[in-house]
């Protein structure tokens, strides 16, 4: 039985204080009545009110959500296809190039991805706006999705698919009825990852967006460049709250799924 030694307890406390204190401070100061962000002048929700009045932020938030939903959905479809190819398609022409193109965007500096996509969009005369951001986000996040999904595909028992095919399924039916339900958790986490990456992205969006479409990170960045602002503190707090609630719900759901699976397995073993 392992117990906390004083050394381990200290390093955990200090480590997690370092990771979480800045966020806690940000949240606390978002309720500060003063406009001077470093002086505490009493509790107030004034900045949340002002935030809700700020059309520019609301518009940007809406654009960001639209872009994130579209790009993560397309990226999940493409990424799952790519993962299937990597794990199941065997040899095909240009496989090495394909594998390279899946892994390269993961390590490519964002400034380069952004610059290169912008030059492409200008080269083909595509006006920059929501569409170009969606294309850009889909491209890098499909690679993340395919990494997540392919690790699940590698670990599952291929004979299940073969059995479905032997029993008369077409390859597409076998995928839909057997493979997809099994890899579904990985596909969902891939979607979530793609969604967060898109919500979060500043650099690539800055290169690929036009004046018609500004995303929230671009807006936040241009506001905080000049210094700390209480409205941004309020906005950050809302974003942190959404993420925290989301992660807690996701972990509860996956815990319940694990319990249900364990029960099913036990029932199957008895039968």
């Amino acid at each position, binding site marked *: 039985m*392992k117990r*906390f030694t004083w*050394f*381990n307890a200290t*390093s*955990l406390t200090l*480590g*997690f204080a*370092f*990771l*979480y204190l*800045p*966020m806690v*401070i*940000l949240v606390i*100061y978002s309720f500060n009545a003063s406009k001077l962000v*470093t002086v505490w002048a009493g509790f107030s929700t004034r900045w949340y009110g002002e935030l809700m009045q700020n059309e520019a932020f609301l518009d940007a938030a809406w654009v960001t959500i639209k872009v994130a939903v579209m790009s993560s959905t397309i990226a999940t479809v*493409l*990424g799952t296809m790519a993962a299937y*190819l990597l794990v199941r*398609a065997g040899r095909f022409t*240009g496989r090495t*190039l*394909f594998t390279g*193109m899946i892994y*390269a965007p993961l*390590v*490519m*500096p*964002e*400034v*380069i991805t952004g*610059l*290169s*996509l912008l*030059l*492409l969009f*200008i*080269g083909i005369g595509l006006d920059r706006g929501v569409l170009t951001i969606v*294309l*850009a986000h889909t*491209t890098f996040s*499909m690679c993340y999705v395919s990494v997540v999904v392919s690790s699940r595909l590698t670990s599952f028992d291929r004979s299940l698919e073969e059995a479905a095919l032997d029993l008369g399924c077409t*390859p597409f039916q076998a995928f839909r009825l057997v493979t997809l339900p099994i890899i579904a958790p990985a596909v969902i986490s891939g979607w979530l990852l793609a969604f967060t990456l898109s919500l*979060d992205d*500043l*650099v690539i969006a800055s*290169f690929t967006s036009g004046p018609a479409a500004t995303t929230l990170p671009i807006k*936040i*960045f241009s506001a*905080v*460049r000049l*210094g*700390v602002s209480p409205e*941004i503190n309020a906005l*950050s707090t809302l*974003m*942190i709250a959404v*993420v925290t609630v989301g*992660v807690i719900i996701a972990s509860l759901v996956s815990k319940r799924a694990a319990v249900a699976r364990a029960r099913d397995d036990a029932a199957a073993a008895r039968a």
Partner: protein
Amino acid sequence: MRRLLIAIPYLWLLALFLVPFLIVLKISLSDTALAIPPYTPTIDLSEGWASFRAFLTGLDFENFVWLTEDDLYWKAYLSSLWIAASSTAITLVVGYPIAYAMARSPDEWRATLLMLVILPFWTSFLIRVYAWMGILAQEGLLNQLLLWTGIISEPLTILNTNTAVYIGIVYTYLPFMILPIYAALERMDDSLIEAATDLGCSRMSAFWLVTIPLSKNGIIAGCFLVFIPVIGEFVIPSLLGGSGTLMIGKVLWEEFFNNRDWPVASAVAVILLLILIVPIILFQRNEQRAREMDE
């Protein structure tokens, strides 16, 4: 069916990953005067070989020569490498004890601790960097605290210096260091430490001779996961750094958005990629070796 399945993601990546990169390469080799926006693509396929030849003779290395002549650029590359290397080392020193303590904590605690390390990943990177601006500012919380405790009598200038950049990097990249080291340590068999101490090792030397070598792959993976992205980092130097902070990601951004010099920005990108290829290949080798050891 199979062809279609292969074609869709393949063509997508060709069109939106490979082709854009070739365009960057091309623009980095084209004449500054011609390529100032809007640049015109010079290959005209309808004219076939003649235009291809004209295209090839039109290429020049002027922009790359320019990069070597102006010392801003090579200083920025060197300083990015230096900042990336030293902040990786600091992150390792900060992250290792946390990963170690997580791996040594009671079983029922581990899932929670792991979730607490992963949670910041899901929070906006921009917000995590921004959070430090209020803390490190001249009249910020850290200075208030230090003044109040009497450690200092004058507020320190931290924001807009390289120190703030280091703090920002260590803070945002810490989970990337902790997770692979934790994964390596968690699989370690504790009886090895007992064996080492039984055989006369002090606890300290058992740590250096047994624990560290066994977590080597995790340490290497963590270091690369921090080092590689930090080289091209833009958000941290531009929010926390000052005018003296030279990092190549920021230089590229300014070259593009402020100076609107696309060919030079493209040349900066090409060199940055060439610099990154070495650590990326080393990282891949390490991952492969780790996988082979598992099997």
